[in-house]
């Protein structure tokens, strides 16, 4: 009997095994996520002006998102693999639908108004791109051939372009990076990667062309913050003051002045990191960043432990993309990167991105808890 299980499983207790293989939940990951979420709620209480209703709303969304996590964790990775192209295709159709039916507005059109609820197809694409890429690349032995590489790139570029057109540059970049991460993990040659890095600056003019005026403005203000006194640079200046004045130990919970005197814009959504930095100081934010690394580290561990290349690629991409989210948000709030409107995962106020992120962790849990126990 014991030879049927690998040694790790033997050391674990009965309850742990039931949770892991009965209801397909990875306890460590769940713990990590719950702590992030609690930190988020605590900060939100301060940033939102002690608004209980705001907290309840966020809590309800978290509940919904966890239900989706739980549901996805039950689905066997093989099944996901079978559905990958369908999900990807559906996502593409919905993206086109958004562009076609959302013709009237001059600004961003990201929502599809379905009969019962509003839905952002670009969020579905965040799942679909790594899923479909992992499926496609592992149809043949890795590393991928040149042809597969090109088709894989197309699978990334098409949805990214459609989303950039909405316009939602932040999401577009995230989806692009989630796909590129799959390509990287799949083992494409270093030569090609190097080629990409040289090639990238050449793509910039094309990107510039498809950008909307306000997105160009954001890039310009990033390069020259003084040029836009009302907009993005104001955000950056305020958030830098909030972060800097937090010092090593911070002003204490609910004591932030910048965040409470209407000075810091979007303090409960995209710029919530600045509130954390002001109230909890360098120690607080370092701990938070460390915790993000731990959660993603568990994901990478799951990827390494996974038994199929498909699972490895998918789990690896999900974990790394999660870190990209954090990096882009914190980079934007601290003035390292331009303001692109990416929320801080599981902490920022808002429902859609939370659902997507927890759905991705549901997939991770499914990968980890559906492993066959036989040593191959």
């Amino acid at each position: 009997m014991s030879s049927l299980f690998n040694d790790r499983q033997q050391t674990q207790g009965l309850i742990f095994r039931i949770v892991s293989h009965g209801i397909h939940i990875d306890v460590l990951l769940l713990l990590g996520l719950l702590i992030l979420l609690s930190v988020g709620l605590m900060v939100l209480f301060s940033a939102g002006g002690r608004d209980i209703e705001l907290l309840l709303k966020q809590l309800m969304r978290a509940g919904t998102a966890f239900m989706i996590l739980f549901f996805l964790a039950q689905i066997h990775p093989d099944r996901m693999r079978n559905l990958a192209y369908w999900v990807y295709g559906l996502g593409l159709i919905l993206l086109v639908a958004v562009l076609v039916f959302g013709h009237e507005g001059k600004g961003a059109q990201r929502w599809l108004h379905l009969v019962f609820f509003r839905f952002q197809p670009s969020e579905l694409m965040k799942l679909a791109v790594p899923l479909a890429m992992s499926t496609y690349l592992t149809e043949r032995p890795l590393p991928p051939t040149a042809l597969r590489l090109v088709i894989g790139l197309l699978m990334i570029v098409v949805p990214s372009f459609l989303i950039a057109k909405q316009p939602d540059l932040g999401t577009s970049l995230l989806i692009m990076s989630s796909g590129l991460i799959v390509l990287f993990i799949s083992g494409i040659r270093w030569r090609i990667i190097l080629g990409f890095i040289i090639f990238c600056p050449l793509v910039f003019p094309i990107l510039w062309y498809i950008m909307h005026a306000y997105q160009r403005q954001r890039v310009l203000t990033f390069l020259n913050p003084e040029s836009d006194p009302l907009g993005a640079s104001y955000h950056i200046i305020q958030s830098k003051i909030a972060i800097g004045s937090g010092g090593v130990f911070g002003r204490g919970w609910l004591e932030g002045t910048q965040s409470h005197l209407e000075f810091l814009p979007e303090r409960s959504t995209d710029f919530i990191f600045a509130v954390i930095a002001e109230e909890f100081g360098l120690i607080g934010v370092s701990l938070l960043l460390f915790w993000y690394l731990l959660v993603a580290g568990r994901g990478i561990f799951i990827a390494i432990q996974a038994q199929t290349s498909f699972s490895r690629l998918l789990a690896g991409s999900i974990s790394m993309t999660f870190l990209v989210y954090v990096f882009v948000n914190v980079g934007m709030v601290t003035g390292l990167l331009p303001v692109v409107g990416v929320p801080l995962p599981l902490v920022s106020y808002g429902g859609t991105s939370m659902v997507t992120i927890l759905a991705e962790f549901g997939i991770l849990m499914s990968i980890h808890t559906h492993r066959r126990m036989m040593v191959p």
Partner: protein
Amino acid sequence: MSSKSQMSLRVILTDHLRESRLVNDRLIFAAFFAIILFMIVIVRLVVLQIMEYEYFDSLSDKNHVDIGALPPQRGLIFDRNGVILAENIPTFSLELIPEKVIDIDNTLSNLAMMLSLSADSLTALKQRINKQRRFNRVVVQQLLTEKEVASLSVNLHRFPGVDIVGRLIRHYPHGNLFAHTVGYVGRINERDQETIDEFNYKGTMQIGKTGVERYYEKMLHGIVGHRKIETNVQGRVVRESQGVASLAGDDLFLHLDLNLQRVASNALGDYKGSVVALDPRTGGVLAMVSKPDFDPNDFVTGISKKEYIILRDSTDRPLFDRTLRGYYPPGSTLKPFVALAGLEFGVVDEHTKTFDPGWFILPGQDHRYRCWKDNGHGYVDLKTSIAQSCDVYFYNLANALGIDRMHNFLDLFGFGHRTGIDLPGESKGLSPSRQWKRINRNLSWYPGETLISGIGQGFNQTTPIQLAQAAAILAMRGINTLPQVLLSRRKSGENKMQLQFIVTTNNLAIVDSKNWKIVIDSMVEVVHGEHGTARHIGIKLPFNVAGKTGTAQVFGIKQGEEYDTDGLAKKLHDHALFIAFAPAERPEFVVAIVVENGGSGSKIAAPIARKIIKNYFGMSVNEQSV
């Protein structure tokens, strides 16, 4: 097992091992890369929070310089004679910021006493405050009177966090009269938020919701300005300085004529329906009325939910713009267009006569398609059948034309297409065809449907603006001029008027000029002929009017039944329609009228047209002289 399959198994195994090693190497590399990125972030935080701590800390303790937006003044809207239709009036509102109020319950009850607010509105206000975030402004009371402003400002020092704010708000001096055309502005909601340029709307409270206000939002809004506001750590404003001034929106001048609009509205009276008047030479919309209407001023300051529900759920649908969106069967007003098709395709000529016994029967069927006149019109030609609106003539003509030719020809007059008018939310209408029915109903076309389409019944649905535009194309002998509400605009700060372009097309150039004349002469016969269905409105006019009455069935009458006006619920009464243009020879005025459940086009709709035409040509609308 053969050695060959063992070999391949080994190959697969080694491949698998190699593959997983490759992937795992990459995963570990990626993880290290991520750690490096995070280190960079930490370094950045160390720079901000340790090395530059003193600098930022002193900044956060100092007076805070904030950039406040200066919202631009919204452009004004005038009629063609410069009479103001939408203006901005200064108002004061009492507002508070919950976070800055020390004792909110006490403050609110005191304010409620001073403003004599009811208990209901006080609880509603408390609810609103609890829903909002604590640092957002909440409006306690809008449109303060001068007296209230005076008494409040004296006592304001007792209530920290409460202040009186002066704002310009939109006002429509003519109330209901332009409710659907000029439209109204309202509070910017979440949906608007998704489409506007956030930067330019900083500080703007209202946005065009319907009509001209919405269509020309971009021109009317203007460009935001900004100034520096210095606040201390307690959040109190210490100093304000001028930065960049805002640029007001453009003033718009419309083709609409206040006087004509008023006459049209009065002429329609308490009926539901729509009146549109166009200048066919420019496409200018001279009057545009949809009834019932509402007071747009109610929407500007935020209509109460109760009032809104009453308006929205009223069976009369006052919020619904009938002119652009109302679907009505064109009825007999379609006949001149069908007649022109008949002439153009050579199916009939001026002298072709048909015998009307009071009904028409398709060969091989026994269903009787009835004429509105029970005993029939006897022998009729084209002119008489238009003048007297003989149905049987047109059953015959439609049958000979066939639905395809009829549909394609009516297409050129814009039936089933949006006119492209510069107002939001126009509907397409419906001009049926074989293809349409197959796609939408998945049914084949029946010959009987061609007949009733020929008299503007059946599937046919037109909007009043479409009818007016079709009449205008007819009046101009085929020239299609895009209907527009906007006449010209004046850019803010400049004294120059910029005229709106007139856009014309002509898809009907091939039509024989003789045929235009026949149809238009027949329409003159409607108004001025001895037996014309609208002969009573042609009296004592110094020029010829070409018109066509229509009475559109809402309610199908079964074979052998009589239409009994008294026994029928009002909402099932026929719609009364009338289209006309004048002078018939050199048209400068087109009018289309739809009176919902008005009964007869000749008795109800046509007299409205007379009043409007008389007013436009400078004659007294009162009929004492007749």
